[in-house]
Structure formats: C-alpha cells, structure tokens
C-alpha cells in the first residue's frame, strides 16, 4: 500500500470517528445544560472547549460552542470540517476504498449545508451518528481485511479511545455537577450493555470500570487501545522494522495497563489527569505511526547519473 494512501485511510478513520464522538459529546453537554438547574453555562462551555483543545473568548455562549464544535466548516474542531476532511481524504484514496464507502462520505459532505445552526442540534447529532454508522457498515461489508482495512481501523480505534477519554473529562467541568454516569453510559451507547453485563444499578465505580477497562465492550478505552495495538501487529511489514511501530505499541500498552491494573477508585480520584494521559498516549502513538509508515524513510537526493 502506498504510504500516501495509507495516511489518507488512517485519517478517514480518525475523522469519521471524531465526528461521531463529537456529536455524542455535544449531545451530552446540551443535555446537562438543560437538566442542571444550577448550571453556570459560560464556564461549562469554556471547559468543554478547553477539553476539545479549542481557542475561545470568555464568556462562551452556547452558540459559540455549537459553531466551534458542530457547524462552522472553517474550524478544524467542528463536525462539519471533520466530515469534509474525511471526504477529501477519501477522494485522494478513491481507488483504494470501495465505491459505496466513497459515495456515503461524498453524500454526507453534500448534505452538510442543509444543517445550519438554526436547526435543532439534537437532530443534527443523530444524523451525524447515523452517517458515521453508514460509513462504518459499508466499510466493514466491502473492504478486504488487508492494509486498507487495518489503517482505517487503526485510526478509528485510536480516535475512539481518545474521544472517550475526553468525554469522561466532562464529569469534572467547572460550573456544573457534570453528567451523571447513566448519561455518560447512554451517550456511549453503553447503558444496555452495562445493565446486561453488571446486572446492577449504575454505580460510579462499576460504570467507570465499564467504560474504562471492559474487555468486550467496543466503546471502552482499554478495548480500543488493545485493538489499536493488535492492528499495528497485523499491518504488512510490521515485523520488518520493529523499532518505531513497537514504540507506538509500547505507548498504547502502557496507557492501557495503567488503567487496567490500577484500582478504579484511584483512577476516579484523578479522572481528568488519567484521561489526559490516555489522550497523550494516543497522540504519541499517532506521531510514531506517521514516522514509521507515512514519511519517507530517508530524504532522497537526486544527483546526475552518468549515461
């Protein structure tokens, strides 16, 4: 697989997953603003934007949050931009991805302008999640499990681990008591799975455990870190040059075991710090993957050859 194409696939995976999770995150946030009577909205908004690493000017209005994270196609943090970028990457890798996946991404991008800030945001978020599901479904049904699949899955699982870590940070926002664990589980589509697995009412430790380290649920952080590690091992030629890809796996493995082998209470007591660790690990792994697979091994200088 061409390095340039692999990079595009990796980013399609990340962008689509990011759009999906940003929609979930915003949905939770708006829900909290509605339900919490003592909410200090500007500081809650500011916390959200800082978790998403966006610049902002205080006080932050709800409109600003929606523009920054959902609708403004000029800002790299917004869902609109992300979906557009996913489509541009798909265009670059057009001959590698299947026609169905391409058309779903292209149609998504074409329909974006219909959703303006004035529409009810919740419907927009539902639509975004649906479109992401369409992309993933078609991707899964039409892609050979070769490197094309692996790079997209790699991007997807890294992004998902990162975004769930960001979502859990909303528990400790300024100016609000934060979403309760039931809401968090619901926003990860995890509530029913949790009830079936734990067979008990939602308690803080159990819920946190489920979202952090459950080995079977596809939206727990540990599951996705593990999956990214495994995928790295499946990529063709991974065994040839061990150093860089292994360092990526090292970063992911360390973050995962840190969660798995630590008492859940200890994680909860330092939730923002621990979640930032996860995000940093994902960032490091992403950089190492780029160095290993997407950049030229050495800069080739051309000099005149004798005929």
């Amino acid at each position: 697989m061409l390095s340039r194409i692999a990079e595009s696939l990796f980013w399609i995976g990340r962008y689509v997953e990011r759009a999906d999770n940003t929609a979930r995150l915003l949905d939770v946030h708006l829900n909290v603003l509605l339900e919490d009577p003592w909410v200090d909205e500007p500081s809650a908004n500011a916390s959200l934007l800082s978790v998403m690493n966006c610049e902002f000017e205080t006080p932050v209005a709800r409109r600003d949050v929606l523009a920054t994270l959902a609708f403004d196609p000029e800002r790299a943090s917004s869902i609109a931009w992300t979906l557009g970028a996913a489509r541009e990457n798909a265009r670059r890798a057009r001959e590698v991805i299947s026609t169905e996946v391409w058309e779903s991404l292209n149609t998504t991008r074409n329909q974006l302008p219909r959703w303006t800030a004035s529409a009810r945001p919740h419907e927009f978020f539902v639509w975004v999640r649906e479109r992401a599901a369409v992309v993933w479904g078609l991707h899964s049904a039409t892609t050979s499990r070769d490197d094309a699949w692996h790079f997209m899955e790699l991007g997807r699982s890294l992004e998902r681990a990162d975004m769930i870590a960001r979502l859990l940070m909303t528990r400790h926002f300024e100016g609000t008591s934060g979403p309760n664990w039931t809401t968090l589980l619901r926003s990860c589509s995890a509530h029913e799975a949790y009830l079936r697995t734990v067979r008990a009412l939602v308690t803080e430790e159990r819920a946190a455990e489920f979202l952090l380290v459950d080995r079977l649920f596809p939206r727990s952080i540990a599951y996705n870190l593990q999956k990214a590690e495994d995928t790295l091992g499946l990529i063709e030629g991974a065994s040839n040059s061990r150093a860089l890809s292994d360092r990526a796996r090292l970063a992911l493995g360390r973050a995962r075991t840190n969660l798995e082998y630590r008492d859940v209470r200890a994680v909860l007591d330092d939730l923002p710090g621990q979640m930032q660790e996860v995000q940093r690990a994902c960032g490091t792994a992403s950089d190492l993957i780029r160095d290993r697979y997407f950049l030229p091994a050495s800069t080739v200088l051309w000099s005149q050859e004798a005929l």
Partner: protein
Amino acid sequence: MTADQHTPWTGYQPVQAWDEAVDVHGKVRDPYRRVYHEIDRMSGDDLYSRAEALASTYLAQGVTFDHAGEERPFPLDIVPRVVGADEWEIISPGVAQRVRTLEAFLADVYGSQHCVNDGIVPRRLIATSQYFYRSAAGIDPANGVRVHVSGIDLVRDQHGIWRVLEDNVRVPSGVSYVLSNRRAMSQMFPDMFGAMGVRPVLEYSQRLRAALTRCAPGDIDDPTIVVLTPGVFNSAYYEHSLLARTMGVELVEGRDLETHNGRVYMRTTAGRRRVDVIYRRVDDDYLDPVAFRPDSALGAPGLVHAARLGNVTIANAIGNGVADDKLIYTYMPDLTRYYLGEDPILPNVDTWRLEEPDAREEVMDRLDELVVKPVDGAGGKGVIIGPKASRSELDAVRAQILEDPRGWIAQPVIQLSTVPTLTEDGLEPRHVDLRPFAINDGDDVWVLPGGLTRVALARGQLIVNSSQGGGSKDTWVLGGERQRGVKTPPPESRVELGGMDAVPQAAHPDDVEHGQQQQQQQQQGEPSC
C-alpha cells in the same frame, strides 16, 4: 408523433447543419427511431426530472469537474447520441488506420527520419515543433508502441461525412466520462439498451490493462503498473482514479515515486516496490525535472533516464506531441499513403498552412469567413471563428499570424452535425463532435465502440470543449446484437439446469412451525363458522 399532441419533439427543427436524428423533411433517421419514440411517449416534465436525476447521481458519485474552483456535476445530456452499425464500420477501421499511421510516423521521427529524407514532411516542421524532444530520441519502447491510448476527434460535416478534426496522442482524456455516462444512462433507459443492441464499453479498462501489461520492459510476467496523476486538484483527477480503480492498479503522484540506479520505485508502507509500467497522465514537460522543467513537482526525477535504460515503460511515450501538432495533421493523408500504402479512410478537414505564403495570402483576405487555430492549442483555446469574431479580434489575430505564421492554421467553418439536446426551451439541435478512443497493444488497434460525444450547450456554438462550457452525451454504437447472439447458451444447457432440484432455503424452525400451526388452527376453526 400526432400533430395535435404536445410531445418533447414538438417544435424540433434542424438548422442548416446535418442533423443526426431528423432529416430536412422531418423524417426520423433509422438509428434514432427507437430513441425518438421512447422520448415521444414521455411528457416534457418527465424528461426534465430524469435529467435532474442524472445530475444528482453524478454529484453523489463525485463525477465532477472543477469549474472556477467549484465542483460541478459533469453535464450529461439525457438524449443519447446514436451511431449506426454501418457508420461504425467506417469509423472504427478509419481510426485504427490513423493510429497506425501516427505510430509509424513517431517511430520514424524518433528514428531515422525517412519521411524527411523522402520529402514527405519538411525537416524544419519537425525541428521547430515545440513537442519534439531530442531527449526522447534514444528511447525504444518495449513492444514498439508509443501511442498506447489515443483519442481521435471526429466531426460530421454538412453532408454527413465523418472527418478527422484533431489527433490526440499525448494524454487524451475523457474516457472515464464514456464509462460513467453509460452507467448512468443504462439506469435511466434500461429497456432501450437490450432492444437496440448497444455495444458495451465496459471492457475498456481490461483492454487498457492488457495493453499496458504487454508493453512492460523485458520479460516480466506480472508487471507492476501504476497510473501517474498530477494530483487531486487536477481537473481530470476523477478519470485518473477511475482508471486506476477499474484496472486494479495503484494511482500514484510524483512524490510517491523514487528512482534508484535507473529503476523506478514507489514508496509503500512495506518499503520500496519496483514499478514496471507507468501510465502517466502528466504532461511531458512536468514528467521529469531533470530532463524537462526543473521546477516541476508533479513528476519524479530520473524517470526519463530509467525509460532510456529500458527499465520502465512510460505510456504514452514521451515526445508524442510532435505527431498531434495541428501542422503535422495536414500531412496525415500523405503519411498514411507513405507508411501504410493505403488511402485514408477518414478524410481531414481542409486546412491551410499559414506558413506557406500563397495560403497565407488567400486566407488573410477571408479571415472573417474561416476558422483560425493556433497549432499547439488544446481545449479550444485561442480558436477564432471568423463569422462570429469582432473586427478587433480579427485584427489582433491577423497581426499574430503575420508575426508567427508557423503557429497558425486556417480551416473553413464546418457546420458540425447536430443532435437533439435538452435545453431550457425543450429539445433543440446542438452541435456535437465525437472522440473515439483507441488502444494499441502492439498487435492490434482496438477502438472503443462509443466514445465521448461532446456537445456545445449554447445555441449555434461550435466549440464543444468542456472547458468552454460544453456538455457530453452517451454515445450508443449499434450492432451489438450479432456478437451477443453467439454468446447465448445452447438450449440444452438450460434444460439441464431446469432439471436440477433447487436447494431449499433454511429458516428458523419456530417460524416455520408457527406458520403451520396457524394454518391448522385456521383450518380447524373453519367448519364451526
């Protein structure tokens, strides 16, 4: 069409050009009969809604081109253009003959130049051609093919005679629109295809791949083929990716390629991989910063050197531009006789070479009734149509011609044939040309049955290039029935298949039982009511 009923055809009136659907007496020509009646049964609104559906599928599929920085759906007209089987019997061998001539000419020009020594083509004509590259002279293509893919532009004049307007043997584009137009139109008019026996175009990609495989250097069994594109911002990017996808090969950009020791490699996630054949869609000038433009970032340094060593085949070959020069065009009939010993099947359009003083003198007086074209122009750029040009335009072009007579040719205004086209005012005749595509695999020249029909969407407009606001039509070549007839299986095989027992489809046992129970319950309940 009954006189009192309003159909899409009401008011359709051919202009002075040859109309391919309807003759001067309003009688429908044979090949169009079925298309005519199909449309006749529709209402005008139906026709428009189908046209809209076409545009929206193109937008969803991303069949677009960049127009002023904006992605637009490639305009495809709802009315197909039909070419009868008898006409294709002229076009197909005519195009193949033309390609064979061009091949022979190129081999000669970059070889011993017999045509110059024998006085067929003046030497200065080749020496002054801006597309004649001395650096391409030593490169011998692996199986002798230089024109792997060509697009020969044809027009039909007032008398219905097909003529060659232009040869394209550098990087002819547009074939992807032939393929996607067909896909879209077959969904729009499914029943017409089978009934009319339209010849299929889908095999193009396999043919191209086979031709590229055969031109691989040395005795490589399974060569690595790549399509080289300038990048995602190129207006033909859709075509590049479609060809790569349907051939099942990699689409590379210049930065994906490296050359080491005269061999070409592409950078992959698993290291370097050797490349044997490059189907390049990058112009000569940009192909290799070492040999040509040093500022080019679109090619890869060292490509030409690798090709010269015979380690990689570049298709189409470098330096082909010398053959599709509009001045060489005027020599094509002579060259056909010279190389092949045959008379040209498809005539040229009469052309004056303005570097010849007599011709120049004659043309200068009649500029307002002729078409003048720059010899190295493409995409309809710089073409001045005398009868439509203003005084100042004519004066300007006159001065340009006197300054550089080598750079211009003149032709009579050809009223291109017209085909019914859906416009805002209903169906109207619009001028069209045809670009059939030919693939040369070294043994045989295969002409794609169909080709890109470009249509000038504005009334009376004679320039059909899409960069000048032209559209396209799906081109249906008839006469596919005989070929298909051979392939239908003999009747006994169908009998055999019918005699076999079908394998039952399983279902959840509860569901089946439940159905039976329900049935029984219903039957038991019957007598009592």
